């Protein structure tokens, strides 16, 4: 177990190295000239060339790559081409807001999703199940911009309970985390239902029931634990996606997060920011999926890694 963990953690270093090369090549390969974009539409060629020189984009690509990697090894992610601020600052001030919003969204979404899923599975084909299905499908097909703007209209404008946006107090978290979590809750609910139903049919559950264990402990004790594997997988993935920031949520609720930063930096071909964000996302997914893999072992000790 410990060996597995150490191995997987050590593995991260070469992967990130590989990823950084890949990202660098891809980002430089796609069409778009940062010097032109940063200089702006009404810039003359002279302006553009000045900007290019100033940003160090006039150097050959391999030289740029070497600079990038040398800085990376010193923990320096470079300077934003657009704002000329250190990338660590740009990302730093947006990471925690995204992180906390993700955490709170996940917490409520997983709890609610699990409850709906379990109720649906145990009350299969009854009204509770149908209501659960209806809710989950709504959660999946409601576009978040629509939900977000409706919530603002209702709870901020009409009722005045919460602010329309920004990040000032705990109240600011309610509407965005509700909007963000809806899709997650739906996914968790559907997976819990399906997977719990699979498990409930298994013979050992039937045996448990026939042995006279009460229904509650059968479901919560045996059933859910085994049913959790796909749910944990899905939850991990959703967690990773949300950590990348959501452009829609950040736009609608004026939330200072990583999603919009990425979109903006793509629009300007702000290479250092794009590269840094993608590295962070890759690292996040690798770590989350490592935790998920470890959880498999906890949930089902028969799953082993060599």
């Amino acid at each position, binding site marked *: 177990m410990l060996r597995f963990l150490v191995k997987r953690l050590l593995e991260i270093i070469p992967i990130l190295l590989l990823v950084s090369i890949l990202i660098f090549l891809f980002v430089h390969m796609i069409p778009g000239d940062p010097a032109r974009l940063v200089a702006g539409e*009404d810039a003359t060629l002279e302006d553009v060339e*000045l900007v290019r020189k100033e940003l160090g984009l006039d150097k050959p690509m391999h030289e740029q790559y070497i600079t990038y990697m040398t800085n990376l090894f010193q923990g320096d992610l470079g300077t934003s081409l657009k704002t000329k601020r250190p990338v660590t600052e740009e990302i730093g001030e947006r990471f925690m807001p995204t992180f906390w919003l993700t955490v709170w969204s996940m917490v409520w979404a997983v709890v*609610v999703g699990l409850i709906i899923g379990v109720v649906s599975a145990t009350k299969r084909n009854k009204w509770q199940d149908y*209501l659960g299905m209806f809710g989950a499908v709504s*959660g999946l097909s409601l576009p978040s911009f629509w939900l977000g703007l409706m919530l603002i209209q209702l709870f901020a404008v009409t009722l005045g309970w919460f602010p329309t946006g920004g990040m000032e107090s705990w109240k600011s978290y309610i509407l965005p985390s509700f909007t963000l979590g809806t899709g997650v809750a739906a996914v968790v609910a559907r997976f819990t239902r399906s997977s719990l139903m699979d498990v409930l049919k298994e013979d050992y559950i039937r045996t448990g029931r026939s042995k006279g264990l009460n229904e509650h402990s059968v479901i919560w004790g045996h059933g859910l634990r085994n049913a959790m594997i796909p749910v944990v997988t899905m939850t991990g993935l959703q967690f990773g996606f949300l950590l990348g920031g959501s452009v829609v949520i950040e736009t609608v609720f004026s939330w200072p997060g990583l999603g919009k930063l990425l979109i903006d930096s793509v629009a300007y071909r702000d290479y250092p920011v794009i590269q840094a964000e993608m590295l962070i996302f890759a690292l996040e997914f690798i770590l989350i999926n490592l935790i998920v893999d470890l959880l498999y072992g906890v949930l089902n000790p028969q799953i082993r890694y060599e």
Partner: protein
Amino acid sequence: MHIFIKQESKGELGMKKALSVLSLLALSMVLILAGCSSASNDSDGKDSAKETEKAKKEGKDIVIAVQDNFTGMDPHDTNDTLSGSVQKTMLEGLVGFDKNMNVIPVLAEEYLANDDATEFTFKLRQNVTFHDGTPFNAEAVKVNFDRLADPESGLKRHSLYSLIEKTEVIDEYEVKFTLSEPFGAMINTFAHPAGLIHSPKALEEFGNDVARNPVGTGPFKFVEWKPSEGLEIVKNEDYWLEGFPKVDKITFKPVAENGSRIAMLQTGEADFIYPVPTEQVENINGKNGIEVESNPSIIVRYMAMNTLKKPYDDVRVRQALNHAINKEAFIKVVMNNQGNVLDSVIAPDVQFYAKQDAYAFDLEKAKSLLKEAGYENGFKTKLWGGNNSSAIKAMEFLQQQLAQINVEVEVVPMEAGTLSDRIWSVQNAEDAEIELYYAGWSPSTGDADWGMRPLLGGTEAYPPFSYNVAYYDNPKVDESILAALQTADLEKRGQAYEEAQNIIWEDAPWAFLSTDNTLAGKKNYLQGVYLLPDGSLSVSEIEIVE
């Protein structure tokens, strides 16, 4: 931070129970209530539009919600109007623009230009100090324009001032600029938002980090800027203009979503917002103490046609397209009535504008022109443009209009970087793929020169040098534009620009569409805050009147 988080977890826990039970119900509730509330808003609006209630305001702190993040607070190194608007609250230039884009004195009291437009002398205002206590004088002006004129500086706005050969201090309050060649539009360039003046001490202390630490002479002083959350400024108690500013504090907040910006104005979280999306004007004006101000801007909308490429190398085809587009409908459908028909290559508020006779909406004429040119059965073509919703809307409209004369348009919206690459990576004009291009332009100097030369100024303006995507090259136009720059004589300049406008209009390298309106929403207790025709914001006279 720690306390903040704790508080929050309590709140979440309290909410959680309620949420888990109610989440499904809430969803359907939201659906219904939101439907109701928007319906009731509509009916409210019609009643209260006439007798708008006066909104209330406590304190003298103003919140202004804008669309985007600022890029920096160094006017010499930014090129977006939005950042410029905020810079103007803290920094001032020698001259500036008034409400109608006329050049007015600011830190200079008067100026003098020689006839060749090569020498400009400014007499400066006395007894003005920067926020850090440094006195404002000719030396301070010189430091700033030396910085701008230095090609090694790498500043984004260098090219505007690259003609300045030398800046001389005549005495404490007089400064003289000498240009390397005549440039008649120079005074407008001095009024341009890029010509704002930093405290020389700040430039020395912070270097290029003045972008984070702006120190000027303006009515407001910089407090704090968190790029993703907002920027805060406070009243400059020692401002040179007696009695101003009239509010204590202004916070600028970037709010990207149109609907959210409006919601903030409705709830009073913001006192002033801009831009207001065109489709919302009628909906919010006169309700909740909100006033929408809609004024003509100098932003022009047009569809460029690649004049080097068939079939647009034929002037009849270009004129046919102009006749085939119903501009009134364009303004109604695309601009939601917030704009005017474009009747020259530049907007009325741009200096030296000369009105032209509109290309009337006339399908028969368009068809016969096409027939003459040999395109009786129309043709297929591609229309490029940006991918924001308003550009797509305009392009789809143009597609519908041109279908009437059997011109089959394929709309190709493109992401910003890809689009700029397709436009500017062209090395040979003949190889340019571009056919039709939907675009907008705002000449930031407010002068005809910048409204024509980069867009239609012959081969020198072809991509990648500049923005002449119509690949329009008429030597007569080039001559006129050049003649206008050779002199500071306003009458001569006006004549030259009029001629250029007449020729361009006849040659129709564009389908001329519309000029935008500037749109701002505010609570009705606010006064003295307005948008200039170039889309920049002026808050120096802002006050609360109840």
